[in-house]
């Protein structure tokens, strides 16, 4: 009886005066797959980036590409700029789950949230640069369109280490999860490391215009991008499930403040 009384007192003292909004948390977790869907469909297919227009293309060819696909580029890129914010909200949901392993305000949880949020910046700016190229294609010289196209890719790809830090933080924290059944599965944790490693190859893109390391090459595009594209929904699946598991844990511990 004494033990029960003590644990009840302890649970009461741990009870936050604020209600945990599990529904919003779950909605934020869902924004990860929404972001990926938008990027995949709009940026990938509608904007003709799957595969990207070749880096070896001449300024005239790049201008012709932007001219020919002006309307789909305007539609896809303008929506995509907006939808990119969902990667930030997803990162907030992930950070909150990480805090349940690492402790409130954990360093790696913060790194993850910053990494996910800052990832949005180069992506949004890149999309805006390409949007400008598409919008102004008839007023710009081929050399300028070519410059904008390359500028976009250099920014989009070479800012990868911000996302690498986010992925590393997630993998480290969930590897440390002491639960018998971890909140995030081993597959996703280790796939995160594969994604982390695969990103390094894109550092070569300023130096090559053909071959596997150029920005539309098998390594720098197909492998580096698709490891990330697989990682996002795989992690999202576990994060969405984790919110329910954490809610159940909190309820069992008497920590839910209704």
């Amino acid at each position, binding site marked *: 009886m004494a033990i029960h009384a003590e644990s009840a007192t302890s649970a009461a003292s741990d009870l936050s005066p604020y209600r945990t909004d599990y529904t919003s948390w779950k909605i934020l977790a869902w924004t990860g797959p929404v972001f990926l869907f938008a990027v995949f469909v709009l940026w990938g297919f509608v904007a003709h980036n799957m595969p990207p227009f070749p880096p070896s293309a001449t300024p005239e060819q790049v201008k012709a590409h932007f001219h020919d696909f002006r309307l789909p580029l305007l539609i896809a890129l303008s929506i995509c700029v907006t939808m990119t914010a969902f990667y930030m909200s997803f990162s907030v949901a992930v950070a909150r789950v990480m805090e349940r392993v690492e402790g409130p305000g954990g360093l790696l949880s913060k790194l993850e949230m910053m990494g996910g949020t800052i990832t949005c910046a180069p992506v949004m700016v890149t999309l805006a640069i390409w949007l400008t190229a598409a919008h102004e294609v008839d007023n710009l010289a081929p050399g300028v369109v070519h410059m904008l196209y390359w500028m976009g890719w250099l920014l989009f790809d070479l800012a990868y280490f911000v996302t690498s830090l986010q992925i590393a933080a997630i993998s480290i924290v969930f590897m440390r999860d002491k639960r018998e059944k971890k909140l995030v599965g*081993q*597959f996703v944790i*280790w796939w995160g*490391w*594969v994604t982390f490693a695969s990103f390094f190859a894109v550092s070569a893109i300023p130096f090559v215009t*053909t071959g596997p390391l150029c920005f539309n090459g098998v*390594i720098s595009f197909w492998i580096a991008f698709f490891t990330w594209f697989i990682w996002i929904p795989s992690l999202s699946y576990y994060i969405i499930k984790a919110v329910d598991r954490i809610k159940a844990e909190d309820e069992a511990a008497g920590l839910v403040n209704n």
Partner: protein
Amino acid sequence: MSTISNVEVVNTDQGVTPRRLPGVDGVWVAIGADSVIFAILFGSFMQARLHNPAVFEASRHTLNMNLGGVDTLILLTSSWSVALAIQALKRGLVDRVPRYLLGGVLTGLMFMMSKSVEYFEKFAQGIRPATNDFYMWYFTLTGIHLLHVVFGTSLLTYLWVRARRRAYSCSRRVVPECVASYWHLVDLLWIVIFPLLYLQRAV
């Protein structure tokens, strides 16, 4: 570190013996993913070779096959040495483990030196990744593999230092098993890269 999911129970004549995947499950995910990535690269290389067989064949002849062969022997020896370290751990022969791991480290370093010699040879001949498609693939495939060797040798060095302090034993061998599994993959990848780049004719 070992999870319940990587424990498998098999029936033997002596009764029920637990059997498990070496290391942790996750390291096999990474090994599998790495293998798939390299398989994609090998496929892409073969596709590029089909488009330009004359250039690929002429360029292949400029590679140093003897050094490639020596590299293969070095990595096979290295894998063998690391396998002996794991065997020694399993049998409780902890004293022998640092010796075998040191063999793995030294052979890893030998491979790096050999590759450096090969690269310097190429640079001295004025060959660069941009020279043609073959060399782009040659430097990319061998370069990525070399990064694997550097990473693996660093891990083996870490194991060697820890093993000298008797950090591992028959019951504490998950980390050495993870590293050894990765090291065997590095060896296996070279066994594919060597014939693909150095030996196979571009027809």
